[in-house]
């Protein structure tokens, strides 16, 4: 597990280095750069791209994605998407389907509450 994580980290670092070197072309102004310059919108506090990759990679591995898939998935994210995942992965909605697992759990809680076993709702 540890070695596979290390491997992914190395691959990501190599990718980031390669992509930074490849796109450095200061004489041209990119479209995204120009649009950002124009709107001067308030930017979210950004963490470094490396740290963002590292954070998302760890999350994904912990959530059962294989090391190889993790790398491919991170490489397909834009900078903004990577930032969003790194900062809010646990809070983002994960669409799963119309299955009522949580609904059933809620009903159990409600019944327990109504028959006086628990006190979950009375403090609300």
């Amino acid at each position, binding site marked *: 597990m540890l070695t596979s994580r290390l491997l992914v980290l190395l691959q990501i670092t190599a990718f980031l280095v390669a992509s930074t070197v490849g*796109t450095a072309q*200061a*004489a*041209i*102004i*990119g*479209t*995204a*750069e*120009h*649009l950002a*310059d*124009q*709107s001067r919108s308030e930017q979210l506090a950004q963490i470094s791209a490396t740290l963002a990759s590292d954070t998302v990679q760890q999350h*994904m591995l*912990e*959530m*059962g*994605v*294989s090391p190889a*898939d993790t790398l*491919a*998935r991170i490489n*397909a*994210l*834009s*900078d*903004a*998407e990577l930032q*969003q*995942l790194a900062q809010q*992965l646990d809070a*983002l*909605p*994960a*669409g*799963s*389907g*119309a*299955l*009522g697992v*949580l*609904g059933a759990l*809620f009903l159990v809680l*409600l019944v327990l*509450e*109504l028959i*006086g076993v628990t*006190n979950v*709702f*009375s403090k*609300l």
Partner: protein
Amino acid sequence: MIRGAALALATLLSACATITTRPPDEAASELTTVPFFPQETYQCGPAALATLLVHSGVAITPEALVPQVYLPGREGSLQVELLAATRRSGRIPFILRGGAEALFEELEAGNPVLVLQNLGRAWLPRWHYAVVVGYQPDTQRVLLRSGTEQRRLERWSRFIASWAHADYWGLVIPRPGEIPASGPADDLAGELAGQEALLEPALVAATWDAALARWPDNLNLLFAAANARRANADTEGAAQLYHTLLMQAPQHMPARNNFADLLVQAGCPVSAERLIAPAQQATPALSPAVAEAVRQTAADIARQRAQVSNDPGHCRALTQDPTLP
């Protein structure tokens, strides 16, 4: 205590009852050619995404998308990963802007829309992806490919409430070289610019061109399309657009810089020098990044200019002399 629980429940439920549920007066529609993939356990994300991708001409299955979007630990798929997987299939994802109105514009144009629904409540969410393929005004039902139902007819009030609880999030995946039917030019430009580095240059250039065809006078689109053409090795096409843009807006210094850079890289330093001069004079008023780019371009030009006194003949095709802006 029972009263307390009931009161709490009523409060929670009523907090969600403020959404307009009046069904819209829209024409009947049904996109019958949109495929259907019944979802496996928890995997509405891969199923809904495959539905849109196949409709846009990609040969793919939900099973192939599972390792690209499914998060076992969350028993579901995240929105941004659907966007990323779309790009891995060689298509461009566009987030729907404008809620129900935009949804109907897409349906009218023949585009199915992947929507995120919250089938639970804000405080107990149950997230679900489905694909909207039509609307029946007489029965006030939305037509969905959803879960294991190929043709789910969902009451408008129920649909719009569940969609509102997911912030009206929707996804459109056009065929290559096409753009969504809905949404303003600026939103589209921002979205495409933010992901073009992850896409094939030819696809990017064709998509900017499509946007430009709809909004021919939009300066941001002219600039973006010119940059994209150049990145796709279409030097003449790029020069043409920079020229058009500068004829409309001579003060567009980023365009002036990029056009001058194109010319100097093409071995036309004399034209490039004429083009960059106004930008050099304007440097104090430019943003640091633009000013720095202008300085670099000017230095490149000076280096080449020292060796020649006239541009070679092929430069004419790029500068469209004598009307250089």
